């Protein structure tokens, strides 16, 4: 996951896949050898400081060869610069300082593309052990972990809040069936909604209309049971006329509504 963009973000170097590509045409890849990419990575990690030949020598020892180290180094650096040119780099990437080491070219600006620096990737490059960048990487990692923690916390909080809201708005109980006894009216037992008081307008009005209108069940009989509901608007009153107690199934209930105006559009 180690990627760098160079030359004002025109060239990208992917250290894991060991390729160069122009940032605006990622398909145009130029492959580097493992040695070349290790050297380049080492130089990039030095952040413009001189990388001494001793440090580079360690990398070269991993791939033993007959050719003397000095020649190999010159060749490798020339090759890196040539490959960068192939990927449309505007100039040389690495300058060699003869007999001492090499350094990143001055016009190269490096920007790390490390979004997800996994511990594995971190462990993969013990070769480039150099105190300064290592410390820096750790600092960056700590910060991102902190942010990730905060983000995860916020996400959890968000989910918890949503669950609470869901519980709050969920219908828990309805007042459709909570009735209390009100009284006897001729052959009819009257019940009123538990939240209504006996002397409220709704109850008195419904009782007056029950006496006046004498509603019948569909079979023409006087309803033995009357349940008076709460009603939110005064244009209506709402009740159930029942043959059997409303709690039971097949209670023969019908809705009885009294309107004192034209039916409104619901």
């Amino acid at each position, binding site marked *: 996951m180690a990627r760098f963009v160079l030359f004002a973000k025109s060239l990208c170097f992917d250290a894991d896949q060991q390729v160069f590509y122009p940032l605006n045409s990622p398909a145009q890849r130029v492959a580097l050898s493992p040695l070349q990419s290790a050297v380049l990575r080492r130089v990039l990690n030095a952040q413009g400081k001189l990388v001494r030949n001793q440090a580079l020598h360690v990398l070269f020892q991993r791939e033993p060869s007959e050719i003397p180290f000095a020649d190999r180094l010159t060749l490798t650096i020339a090759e890196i610069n040539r490959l960068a040119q192939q990927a449309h780099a505007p100039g040389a990437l690495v300058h060699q300082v003869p007999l001492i080491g090499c350094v990143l070219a001055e016009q190269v600006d490096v920007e790390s593309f490390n979004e997800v620096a996994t511990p594995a990737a971190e462990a993969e490059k013990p070769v480039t052990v150099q105190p300064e960048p290592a410390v820096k990487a750790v600092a960056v990692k700590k910060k991102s972990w902190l942010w990730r923690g905060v983000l995860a916390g916020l996400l959890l909080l968000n989910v918890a809040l949503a669950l609470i809201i869901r519980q709050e708005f969920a219908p828990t109980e*309805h007042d459709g069936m909570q009735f209390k006894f009100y009284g006897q009216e001729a052959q009819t037992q009257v019940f009123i909604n538990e939240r209504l008081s006996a002397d409220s307008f709704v109850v008195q009005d419904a009782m007056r209309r029950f006496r006046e209108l004498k509603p019948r069940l569909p079979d023409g009989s006087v309803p033995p049971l009357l349940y008076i509901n709460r009603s939110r608007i005064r244009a209506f009153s709402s009740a159930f006329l029942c043959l059997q107690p409303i709690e039971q*199934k097949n209670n023969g209930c019908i809705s009885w509504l009294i309107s004192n105006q034209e039916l409104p559009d619901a």
Partner: protein
Amino acid sequence: MRKSLLTLVVIIAFILPWAWVLLVRPTVVVPEWCDVPYRIDNEGKPTGTLDATVRTRFKADGSGASTLIGTVTLPDRQYRLNRVSVSSWHRQGDFMLVNTRKVQAMADDTVPEPLAAQILFTSARESHSDYYQMYQLPNGDQIINYSGMPRLYCHT
């Protein structure tokens, strides 16, 4: 590119629970058959009584059909009511949205259209939407609750 994708994922992760809460509300079962017998005594104009039963079938595919059969009694005369309506329905949490597509008056229906428009619930009028709550009673029946309107009793 990666960063914006990640940001997008995080934003979606924040929105998702709320979308779930709003769209997937705890629901009560919708009965396939619902019989609502009702009587309306209208003291306003026109004075009269409407005795009717709405028998609705809520099919599982979201379509529905209902018949409205009854009588309308005015002081001077009586009408027969017999209409069939086709509708579509869906749940929105514990709410119910019913859209009446087509209403057909049967041959023996004698209620004049202007009167019908005045006295029938919107569920018996073409291209009307009704938004109401249905909640289940312990005995398995349901109560239908329009906002601000009287409750209706649905026998299942």
